[in-house]
């Protein structure tokens, strides 16, 4: 019976293994230690690893993330938890300016191996201030890496790789995914004895021939749902590509898929303006124009702040039905 664990447990396992793997790994954030994490990702880790490795921070994101960047220059590997990725905005200068440019401005002398992780999603009825999805914003900045796992397997494999990476990695999760399970092998089932998913590799989550649904984060799950509907009701065989890593980006997997299916839609819970899909569709247009049988479409969250009212907020996010409808319009 293959082992099934939740996305939350997968992250925790990854963190736990990296705490064991490297004494320089330290987890800092609000309520990560004694409270066991606002979303229980770090549950039990404080008890196991103690005050030095798990640190409860005051509500000073600019301060503690900046501190983490400084510490990382001396070889510490801080894993900073943002209770919500929306709170990155109070630490924006540290994350965008300091973390991203120290290496460049020092002519390569300085490394910043910091990870900043936390949920970056809407759809949970908490209002506009708490529902930001800044993956495109951070991916805009050379020097930063942005990853966004859609299932437990990738959550574990990517968090481990992120911690070992020598550059800043901004790791965006989803509160909606924390409880979802997937098959994640235990270490003794693995040849290498551990699960590492390389940053910069996309994954084909469903093979298909008629259209490429390319997505990241929770939109991958929505795309898989849509692919099932397309197959069952419309006899369309959609391929679903999960970016997993937004920057660095696995161009090759995207282009291979598009060259096979000749149609593509990018789906994301991000906002449309300069969204991840804008980048991808422009690349497809440049590199695979002759392979396309239809314009590349994008499905995003509504171009508005998150609406508090639950039934309306739901409509702001990409829905499987919407993907089906748009797919039919180009198939």
């Amino acid at each position, binding site marked *: 019976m293959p082992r099934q664990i939740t996305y939350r447990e997968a992250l925790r396992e990854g963190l736990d293994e990296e705490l064991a793997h490297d004494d320089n790994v330290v987890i800092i954030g*609000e309520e990560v230690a004694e409270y066991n994490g606002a979303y229980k990702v770090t549950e039990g880790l404080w008890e196991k690893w103690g005050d030095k490795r798990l640190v*409860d921070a*005051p*509500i000073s994101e600019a301060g503690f993330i900046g501190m983490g960047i400084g510490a990382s220059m001396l070889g510490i590997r801080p894993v900073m938890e943002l209770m919500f990725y929306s709170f990155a905005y*109070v630490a924006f200068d540290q994350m965008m300016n300091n973390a991203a440019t120290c290496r460049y401005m020092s002519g390569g002398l300085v490394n910043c191996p910091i990870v900043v992780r936390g949920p970056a999603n809407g759809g949970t009825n*908490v209002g506009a201030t708490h529902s930001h999805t800044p993956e495109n914003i951070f991916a805009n900045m050379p020097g930063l890496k942005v990853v966004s796992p859609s299932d437990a397997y990738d959550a574990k494999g990517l968090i481990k790789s992120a911690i070992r990476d020598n550059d800043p990695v901004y790791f965006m999760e989803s509160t909606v995914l924390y409880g979802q399970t997937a098959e994640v092998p235990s270490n003794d089932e693995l040849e290498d004895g551990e699960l590492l998913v390389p940053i910069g590799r996309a994954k084909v989550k469903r093979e298909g021939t008629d259209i490429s649904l390319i997505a990241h984060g929770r939109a991958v799950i929505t795309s898989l749902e849509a692919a099932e509907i397309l197959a069952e009701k419309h006899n369309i065989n959609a391929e679903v590509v999960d970016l997993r890593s937004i920057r660095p980006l696995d161009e090759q997997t995207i282009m291979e898929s598009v060259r096979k299916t000749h149609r593509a839609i990018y789906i994301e819970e991000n906002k449309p303006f300069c969204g991840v899909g804008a980048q991808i569709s422009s690349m497809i247009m440049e590199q695979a124009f002759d392979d396309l049988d239809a314009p590349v479409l994008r499905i995003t969250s509504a171009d*508005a702040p998150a609406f508090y*009212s639950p039934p*309306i907020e739901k*409509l702001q996010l990409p829905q499987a039905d919407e993907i089906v409808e748009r797919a039919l319009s180009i198939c």
Partner: protein
Amino acid sequence: MGIKLSENCDSKFQSAYITLLSAPFQHRFIFSHRMAAKTKTSAQTDHKEAAINASLSKEDKLDLLREMVRIRKFEQTSLKHYLNGSIGGFLHLYIGQESVAVGSISLLGDDDHVITAYRDHGHALAVGMGMDECMAEVFGKATGCSKGKGGSMHYFAPDKNYWGGHGIVGGQTPLGAGLAYAVKYQGKKGCCLCYLGDGAINQGAFHEALNLAALWDLPVIYIIENNGYSMGTSQARSSAFPEEGLAARAEGYNMAWDKIDGVSIYEIRAGVQKAVERAHNESKPTLLEIATYRHKGHSVADANAEKYRTKEEIKTYMDKHDPIQFMKDDLIAEGILTEEDFKAMNQEAQKEANDAADFAIKSPFPEESEIFDDIYWEVDNNTEAGRTGRHFFHG
């Protein structure tokens, strides 16, 4: 040197807490410095005799109590509907802290303004927002004060000088300085009360705002509602501060400060009034720290509320530091309230809250078409600017 306001305040503040706190949790929950406890003075009577309170009529006093009771009933009713699934998201209840909003806001006039964080229902009702619109907002209904767009954490009522309702910790504190700036700029005799939590004082923006307020003589009054915890983290685990308390950080900005025991609405009114006068007459800021306690968890979703705080601690505060109980006892002793009156007051407030919930339940959800309203003024008003260029990029 900053200006320390009431010299006797400290000892009384201190004594109230030292007697309340039993030894086991003193190390986690420290409202004040651990000086030898001084005997409780007759400070409550003193505050009641302060001019601002001495002038209160019997009706005024009953109104203050009634306002606190209304807030509590509103909160208890919204909690009930959260637990039965009609409300989602976050719900940060104000139960236990009612005296802070009611006492301080009762002092304000037409050119005074209010801004707070996400624990905002109490302040909203205190400035005169109706229960119906507030309840409908947490239910996400079109009839809510923000048309269902903002939710529990994001109430607004500019017509009542109430500028939110802000979800990001500390985010409202520079805005508070800004409201005061505008009041001063426009030559009005007014001020801004800007509320924040004991955890919020550690946001960088707050420190920048304090400096601006002091440097530019802005009539802003920062009120730290010190309920001892930021989420599950006690004050002692989140803040470094001088012996005198959190508000003493004002010294570093050469700003006046004071500490107030929030159990007594009279003490709040007396203390805040001094700051209001300083703002009105001298255009100077003040940093106040009001000791209070939230009876419930951080939000209704806080599953650990009885883990990081002992049951005994919660019970002690509910029994001995409840501002409603305190004022009720005081008014009964004064002979202007009976147990029956108090019961009737509660029933009336409960009915108002139940009616508000009915109103919310019966109200419609917003329409999908409203998603793109209220983003740009120019678009909403179909002006030339609103018709120039593409504003939205969905689909």
